[in-house]
């Protein structure tokens, strides 16, 4: 792969859509070509700035949603034919149609939400974090001794030093256990800064690539993000491991921890 290929394929690489073999070739080129790496980092930086600015726009959807509901309620063709309308007072009929439209819009919205594609590994990580960390449902097999957690990591091919390296910058390792995300084994580590808890999911890197668009790069490692309700995920890959960070505070929390983790690993 040469520099021209990199320029052509960059949109697919950044969006996480490049086939694994091509993505690996892309990575190899980036490691040997500082100019392309700089270019990609600059793109990621500008993307991040643009995203930050546009997402800060005030968008109040309440008025639009209300107008849509009212329009649906006011359209006979959206409901029953006029000849079949119930003989009830006009204001009650309007109120009933409004309520019906509300339910229909809500139902449509829920269907729209379900229709959005979410990578299974992220959905599983968000659900696992909610159950294990936020709701703290009692589960066996949590280890709390860092030495034992490191040993568990080693058993699964993950260097124990990487587990401990994450416990820096004011964060400490609270507990760890193995879990399954998208039918793959991950080491689930929980770190805390005393007030917030973060989940980090690690597995040995293989040919499978993380899905999602690249948000920024840290030490040459592309960072991807995904928000699922109140869970926020930031993910990255090092030459050795695939890592997912999940926070339930804010997207910025997940991103901040992921930046530290990506720099440390």
């Amino acid at each position, binding site marked *: 792969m040469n520099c021209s290929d990199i*320029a*052509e394929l*960059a*949109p*697919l690489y950044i*969006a*996480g*859509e490049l086939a694994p073999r091509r993505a690996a070739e892309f990575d190899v080129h980036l490691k040997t070509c500082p100019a392309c790496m700089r270019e990609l980092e*600059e*793109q990621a*930086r*500008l*993307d991040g*700035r*643009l*995203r930050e*600015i*546009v*997402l*800060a*726009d005030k*968008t109040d*959807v309440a*008025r*639009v*949603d209300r*107008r*849509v509901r009212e*329009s*649906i309620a006011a359209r006979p*063709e*959206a409901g029953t034919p006029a000849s079949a309308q119930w003989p009830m007072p006009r204001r009650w009929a309007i109120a009933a149609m409004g309520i019906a439209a509300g339910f229909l*819009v809500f139902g*449509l*919205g*829920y*269907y*729209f*939400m379900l*229709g*959005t*594609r979410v990578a299974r590994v992220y959905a599983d990580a968000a659900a696992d974090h909610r159950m294990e960390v936020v709701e703290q449902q009692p589960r066996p097999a949590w280890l709390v001794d860092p030495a034992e957690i490191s040993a568990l990591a080693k058993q699964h091919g993950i260097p124990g030093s990487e587990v401990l390296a994450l416990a820096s910058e004011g964060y400490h390792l609270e507990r760890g256990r193995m879990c399954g995300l998208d039918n793959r084994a991950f080491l689930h580590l929980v770190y805390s800064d005393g007030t917030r808890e973060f989940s980090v999911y690690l597995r040995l890197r293989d040919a499978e690539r993380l899905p*999602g*668009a690249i948000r920024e790069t840290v030490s040459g490692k592309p960072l991807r993000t995904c928000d699922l309700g109140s869970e926020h995920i930031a993910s990255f890959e090092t030459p050795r491991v695939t890592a997912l960070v999940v926070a339930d505070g804010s997207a910025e929390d997940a991103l901040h921890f992921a930046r530290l983790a990506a720099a440390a690993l």
Partner: protein
Amino acid sequence: MPHSRSLLRVARRLTSDGAVAEDLVQETLLRAWRSFDQFEAGTNIRAWLFRIMFNAFYAQGRQARSAPVLVSLDAPDRAAEPERPAGLSLIDAAEVNRAFEELSDEHRAVLLLGVVEGFTCQEMADALSLPMGTVMSRLSRGRQALRDRLANGSAKAFRAHAVAGSAHKEA
């Protein structure tokens, strides 16, 4: 509705007018409502909604849209600004907004979907009814166009700063 915020955010940046954007999103959701039987279950609902919106947007044509946002040409007091290091990380929002406004509709559309809303190239191709290759090249050119405009803006700002600085010294 879960996607109405994304639709409105993109519509506002496309039309440069809050009221026109709300009308566009309202029209989009009503069209979606009326033609929901045409949506194929299991396909991407978000791309489908945006396709409806872009079709409505392009159908309205430029004449029907509002005038672009007026941006003040009064230069801020740059003499008071600290020196900016090289790179794009500290570019202020006003500069990015101005550069973004200058882009073509096509470039703004792909940047809004791909960069801001996190669409994949395939989703963009679906939403914009374009081949993947066209989406990829538009995205690359859109990114480059934005960078070029920001670089020009920075160069102009630096020249203005330099001129102001030398005038100040002479005084």
